[in-house]
């Protein structure tokens, strides 16, 4: 494990507004130099990156490929059953080692020159190592041990596999903090069953999506379906819990707790409520109370790019992968639990109509970031305003707040030193 070289502050030039995290300079969404610095300072810096679920690779030799920021990685269960994460690059000439999205193997062999690596990333074989008839081949002092795959530090918590390039970042549970680990324990309290995966390509900077997912203020305004059918409204009992560094959050609400009267929802001033709309078949919003705490919607954002979703009985992990400064791809992994009944699985599948690229309450998020990206290209020096719920980053009883968006920028500024 080697620390990555850190770009210096001169690699980009960004002056954060004096008002702090209640202003966001549009430059952060358009600057290619900044994007490159994010790869080093965030994704390869002092963070834990979620790579997958243990349940995706149940047996030794099972692997999946993924990306950490722009860097392709392989997650594999080794012969001893431990999770390993490597950069997906042959240690010889740099070719992509594994092109499949998932599979099972005894070793990873590069197609270019047949160099092969075991499930712990150690170099095990080199084609024509001894040449032919004492001609060619590797020097006799070639050190196999020094030419393994680049191996990341890995930790597993409640079945979630995280990896980091950093030798310094605190252990995963410490880095997450007690509130975030408690939410992992709540969702991943028993073995999961994976229901499928897909992705949504967005034409905007990756951080515009992370702002969106942390923005409890927008959710029941932009997403009319959510509001009209009472899945989540700001008038329900709920809250916004933010980690001390600002980077992680959980927003939650309880459907049964709603007090609608006297809010803007009932005053016909908002496009979000359509009183006369009735569902012909309400099964897609009907849920069973699954968690003892009564929370019916909980969205957890883990810095920099992971989302843990509970929308009623629809459970999913979402991983935001940057695709250059003005594009990104959101990878969804839908799941239930191994001991779900067929009826419960069917309810989860029906409620999955609410989420994903065709989600009745989430499709708009695939578009709204692009509406920002389109307007800011020539105005990198102007700023967005984030003053709902104050100008600070604190846990809040109200979700009429942009506090967790400010929290994201607080963590971002620390990590990027801006």
């Amino acid at each position: 494990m080697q620390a990555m070289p850190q770009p210096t502050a001169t690699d980009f030039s960004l002056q954060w507004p004096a008002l702090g995290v209640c202003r966001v300079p549009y430059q952060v969404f358009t600057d290619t130099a900044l994007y490159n610095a994010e790869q080093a300072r965030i994704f390869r810096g002092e963070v834990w990156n979620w790579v997958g679920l243990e349940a995706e690779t149940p047996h030794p030799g099972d692997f999946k490929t993924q990306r950490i920021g722009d860097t392709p990685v392989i997650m594999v269960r080794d012969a001893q059953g431990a999770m390993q994460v490597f950069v997906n690059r042959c240690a010889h000439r740099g070719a992509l080692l594994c092109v499949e999205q998932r599979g099972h193997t005894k070793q990873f062999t590069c197609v270019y020159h047949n160099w092969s690596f075991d499930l712990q990333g150690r170099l095990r074989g080199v084609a024509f190592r001894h040449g032919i008839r004492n001609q060619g081949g590797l020097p006799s002092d070639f050190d196999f041990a020094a030419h393994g795959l680049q191996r990341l530090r890995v930790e597993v918590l409640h079945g979630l596999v995280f990896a980091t390039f950093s030798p310094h970042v605190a252990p995963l549970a410490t880095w997450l903090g007690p509130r975030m680990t408690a939410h992992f324990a709540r969702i991943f309290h028993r073995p999961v069953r994976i229901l499928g995966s897909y992705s949504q390509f967005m034409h905007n900077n990756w951080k515009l999506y992370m702002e969106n997912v942390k923005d409890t203020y927008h959710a029941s305004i932009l997403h009319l379906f959510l509001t009209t059918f009472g899945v989540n409204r700001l008038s329900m009992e709920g809250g916004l819990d933010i980690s001390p560094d600002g980077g992680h959050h959980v927003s939650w609400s309880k459907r049964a707790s709603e007090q609608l009267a006297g809010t803007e929802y009932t005053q016909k001033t908002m496009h979000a409520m359509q009183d006369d709309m009735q569902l012909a078949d309400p099964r897609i919003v009907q849920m069973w109370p699954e968690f003892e705490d009564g929370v019916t919607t909980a969205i957890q954002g883990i810095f920099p790019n992971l989302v843990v979703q509970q929308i009623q009985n629809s459970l999913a992990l979402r991983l935001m992968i940057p695709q250059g400064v003005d594009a990104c791809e959101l990878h969804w992994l839908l799941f239930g639990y191994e001991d779900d009944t067929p009826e419960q699985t069917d309810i989860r599948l029906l409620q999955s109509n609410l989420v994903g690229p065709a989600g009745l309450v989430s499709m708009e998020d695939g578009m709204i970031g692009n509406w920002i990206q389109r307007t800011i290209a020539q105005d990198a020096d102007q700023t967005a305003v984030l003053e709902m719920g104050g100008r600070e980053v604190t846990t809040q009883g109200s979700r009429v707040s942009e506090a967790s968006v400010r929290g994201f920028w607080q963590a971002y500024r620390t990590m990027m030193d801006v």
Partner: protein
Amino acid sequence: MAQENDIVRRAERLTAEYIGCIDDDALERWPQFFTEDGMYRIVSRENYARGMPASFFYCQGQGMMHDRILALRRANIYEPHVYRHMVSGTRLRHEEPGGWRLTTNFHVVRTMHTGEIVVFATGCFEDMLVEREGALLFREKTVICDSSRIDTLLVIPL
């Protein structure tokens, strides 16, 4: 053979009407192509091949289809766009009690109101057709997209 040709021709005519309904934005009629308890879903080829049940879009019955169109008209927010479906290669998989299973390739081009044109989806329809009062209806329609990735959003059915 003659009977097989007949069902394939009838299925092709039904599919032509079905894609015309979508491409002409006559979506209120879309549920009528199904039996009342008809199943419609859009899945990725990868999930389908792996036996993973998650769908992009999943309706059990005409009521849910109606609700999808209601949401598309009144709740969901998206930039105006239209599809143009191209279909080919309809073939009979097998006949079973009460109906026929057929497969048809599709290719959908999306044109945005801005004029931007992209290939939005390709794949196949796996259909279960039944006959009701002399007319063919879909009892099941599984839209299998070759790609697992959707550009921006999917609001109009395929």
